[in-house]
């Protein structure tokens, strides 16, 4: 089988994970900018991180023949400091033309605060001015429903944003419908404890259709499984999905969304 990992934080994984993913059929990996587990102290910390995402990590993936793409932003967890966020947004355009850069992400909200919302609006404005795709992180656990609604309002209020060029990630049963009804794409994150298990992700596909949905492992330094997508493909097979229907979800859907970025190339 072939699949695309549209959301993997590979800077926090070992090369063994690259080997396993490619062995399992991974044809491309996309890495959104995220929180490092600690707050970075300066804009230069982000410049180094963006260099890691656009230079070092693609080279590491290339050793396994795996195309590596990335998204750039300052993560909502670091968005309470609006001044720092504004400085970081100032350097992002330096990197937007680099090969492998898909757009702005993963932006969004974490605790649904005013400053997070302000920084989200700044990112949406940056994406609109530079005609970039957007990848949105929705908050965790009890904050997800409220945060998803606030994010959808921000996107709707900016008339320059075309909904089909935005993917809202980490949807669950209580948020998937409103995201799709707003015309966006939705992402399901396959985590062992929080977010979606493979069984629930397939339930969501059964109930809501697979037209504008993708799945990802979001593998990072927390409890997460880099092979979550092929394992979920196995779950689909056990539930009677055809090979073609599985391929549509794990390969063709991410390609359809990502091909809206001219820098994304269809994996051979």
């Amino acid at each position, binding site marked *: 089988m072939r699949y695309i990992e549209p959301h993997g934080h590979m800077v926090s994984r070992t090369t063994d994970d690259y080997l396993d993913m490619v062995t399992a059929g991974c044809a491309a990996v996309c890495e959104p900018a995220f929180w490092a587990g600690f707050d970075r102290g300066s804009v230069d910390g982000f410049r180094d991180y963006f260099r890691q995402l656009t230079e070092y990590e693609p080279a590491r993936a290339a050793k396994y023949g795996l195309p590596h793409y990335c998204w750039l932003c300052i993560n909502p967890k670091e968005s309470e400091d609006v001044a720092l966020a504004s400085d970081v947004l100032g350097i992002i355009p330096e990197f937007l033309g680099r090969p492998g850069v898909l757009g702005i992400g993963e932006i969004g909200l*974490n605790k649904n*605060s005013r400053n997070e919302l302000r920084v989200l609006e700044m990112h949406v404005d940056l994406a609109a001015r530079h005609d970039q795709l957007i990848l949105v992180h929705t908050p965790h656990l009890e904050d997800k429903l409220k945060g998803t*609604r606030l994010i959808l309002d921000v996107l709707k209020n900016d008339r320059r944003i075309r909904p089909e060029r935005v993917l809202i990630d980490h949807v669950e*049963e*209580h948020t998937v419908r409103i995201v799709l009804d707003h015309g966006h794409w939705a992402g399901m994150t396959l985590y062992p404890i929080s977010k979606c298990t493979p069984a629930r992700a397939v339930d969501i596909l059964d109930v809501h259709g697979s037209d504008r949905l993708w799945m990802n492992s979001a593998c990072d330094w927390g409890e997460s499984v880099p092979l979550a997508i092929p394992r979920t493909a196995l779950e689909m097979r056990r*539930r009677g999905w055809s090979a073609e229907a599985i391929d549509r979800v794990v390969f063709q859907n991410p390609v359809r969304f990502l091909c809206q970025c001219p820098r994304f190339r269809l994996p051979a």
Partner: protein
Amino acid sequence: MPMTRAQVLDLYYMDARCKLIEIAAFLDRVDRGTGEADFRLDAFRDAMQHLAGGEPRRAEEVLRSLSDPTEVPVDKAPGKGAVGAWPGRGA
């Protein structure tokens, strides 16, 4: 593509049985513990009510019942983490 109910049971019964017993054992463990519980236990018990619902929207209803129902952004992020239940419900 819906499965038959027998197929669902064949695939998922043992897994669901395991999780059901885990929840029962968790509640027993809380009972045997000392000191006060907090809002999370009340939220958990509230959420369990939705298991008895008659519509196939139980997962959605459980998630909603554990969610912050307010609509206005908070003034300042109170840290970075989430705990899985909304503290304001009992307040």
